[in-house]
């Protein structure tokens, strides 16, 4: 038997004057969301929608006319250059993100798990290169990788080579190196963060249950840091996907990437609808990668 109270009438009391007093400015708390909503709508959603609309327009003479057509998208699929370049770009992005992880993971592991002193300093040191302008870094890489560059000079001085090697630059390899250089700090941060989240006790438990160092790494640390790896991957991938300045500056005759194709439509050709359509295809890929990685890391995000 319940106490009397619970037996009482479930209906609210008749004299519920509270009904009128209830709305105590509930809208107020939504007020704090106003700036972000305006921001989101005005400079993210609407521009992207307009760009989407533009991608269905048509260039007539020197002008862009709002004539609805799928021609721009059709061009992507029918014209022989877009798809190969597109896949080449995806491949490059893939290579960049994988290499960033291959470089960044051990480093993050080292700094987060193996170093005790100067840990914060080492972490900060990885961020410092971000402060030198991206363009200046590109130029510096030119000085490093060129025929008469630092790398070749070094190799020559060490008598490892007789002739300067020209394969370092003006080809996709250079794009790959420099994009990796640019993505690495971001990938590092994201892996480092996820490594930091792994409770020490899980690693103790693994050791306790018979796992030695490498097995703990394989069975526990790597699986649990996957969200960080994935977000690093996404970051590097999308950066590489969208960059066109590095291919332009360092890519050489075979360095044409999808981003350059897009930009060329906004440049001399002034074919914005086509550029928007190509841009939207890239946008689609970026969103797809982001969604996939979010999905994957949601299912891997055991430590959230």
């Amino acid at each position, binding site marked *: 038997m319940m106490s009397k109270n619970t037996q009482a009438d479930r209906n609210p009391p008749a004299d519920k004057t509270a009904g009128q007093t209830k709305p105590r400015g509930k809208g107020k708390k939504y007020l704090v969301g106003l700036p972000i909503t305006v921001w989101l709508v005005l400079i993210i959603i609407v521009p992207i929608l307009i760009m989407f609309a533009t991608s269905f327009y048509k*260039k007539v*003479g*020197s*002008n862009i006319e709002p004539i609805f057509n799928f021609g721009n998208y059709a061009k992507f699929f029918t*014209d*022989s*250059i877009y798809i*190969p*370049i597109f896949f080449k770009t995806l491949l490059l992005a893939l290579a960049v993100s994988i290499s960033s992880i291959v470089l960044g993971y051990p480093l993050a592991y080292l700094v987060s798990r193996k170093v005790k002193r100067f840990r914060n300093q080492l972490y900060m040191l990885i961020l410092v290169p971000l402060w030198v302008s991206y363009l200046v870094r590109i130029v510096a890489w*030119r000085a490093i990788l*060129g*025929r*008469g*560059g630092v790398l070749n000079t070094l190799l020559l001085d060490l008598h490892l080579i007789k002739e300067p090697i*020209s394969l370092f*630059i*003006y080809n996709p390899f250079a794009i790959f190196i420099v994009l990796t250089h640019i993505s690495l700090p971001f990938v590092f941060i994201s892996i480092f963060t996820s490594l930091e989240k792994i409770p020490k006790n899980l690693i103790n438990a693994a050791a306790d249950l018979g796992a030695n160092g490498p097995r703990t790494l394989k069975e526990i640390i790597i699986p649990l840091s996957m969200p960080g790896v994935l977000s690093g991957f996404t970051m590097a991938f999308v950066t590489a996907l969208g960059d066109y300045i590095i291919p*332009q*500056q360092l*890519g*050489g*005759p*075979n*360095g*044409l990437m999808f981003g350059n*194709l897009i930009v*060329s*439509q*906004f*440049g*001399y*050709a*002034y*074919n914005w609808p086509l550029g928007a359509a190509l841009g939207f295809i890239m946008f689609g890929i970026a969103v797809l990668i982001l969604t996939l990685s979010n999905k994957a890391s949601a299912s891997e995000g055991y430590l959230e």
Partner: protein
Amino acid sequence: TAIASITAGCSGGGSAKKTLNILCFQGYADDTWVKPFEKQYNCTVNVTYAGTVEEMYTKAKAGGGQYDILSTDCGSVQRYYEAGLIQPLDMGQIPNTSKLSQFFQKNADYKTIDGKVYHSPIVWGSNNVVYNKDKLGTLPDSWSVLWDPKYKGEVSVTDEANNNVVTTAIYLGFKDPYNLTTDQLNQVKAKLIALKNNCRELTNGFDSEKNALSTGETLASVSGYDSGLILYLKNTAKMNVGRIMPKEGIYIWIDGWVLLKGAKSPDLAQDYMNYILSDEVQIDLAKSLSFGAVTPAAKSALDPYVCSLTDYDNIDNIKVPIFIMKNPENVDLRTQIWNDAKAAS
């Protein structure tokens, strides 16, 4: 709009003083001659730089009355006209036009549409091959060097669609490199693929050209700024360089001012155009940029060595065909051809 008026309000200063808003490449509005102009005409000059031709066009299109004049190569005049961005010049306000070299006086097609003039020149230059004489000796005067398998991986061209199409068309001997038939374009495309495959790199502007040659990255480079390049390589990098004067013909550009529609101070703008053609400014320009001056006045003021190197003194006497840059038949197509060539392997 509100924003525009704020900007205008800010830059305009007092209403008594007139304002001239210029959009141009770096170097075309140096304080050396802008300051005297401001003083002389009691006005304020606001200068905005653009990095590329395309950027310029986009900005002009977006500008909506923000600029009075902009500098553009002669090839784009037609495009600005078609886009309804520019208005004809009142030649009466630019009397200095008569000072132009004979060549520029004779060839006015590029700037005239329906009998009206839209372009007032500043400087000129050619897209040409500069090469490392130490390594290559003296090369023949022909574009064929760029395709020569001997120099595979040693040459570079600019990463600009139209430039390369035009150069190739000239090399192939086509009469009008700015108006090619489909068949001709196909031939050009095939040649462009070969060209690209012969290249070490595709340069982007002067810095990468100068870098390419001075570091030995390439031995021969096409440059839209050959004079500056040669001077730099000689004086700073201490290299022995040569320049090809191709027998097939050279391809030149003329940068000049166009008057934008909706210009707030059209008179002042045309005064400025006129001012640019004055002897002093032409000399300053030639000195500071080592581009070709469009009036003979600069000739006397320049180092004779520089003159001899760059043919500034004798544009009227050049023996090979000269093709002044013009709006091509199909911009999209040329972009695509170049993209196709770059994408081909």
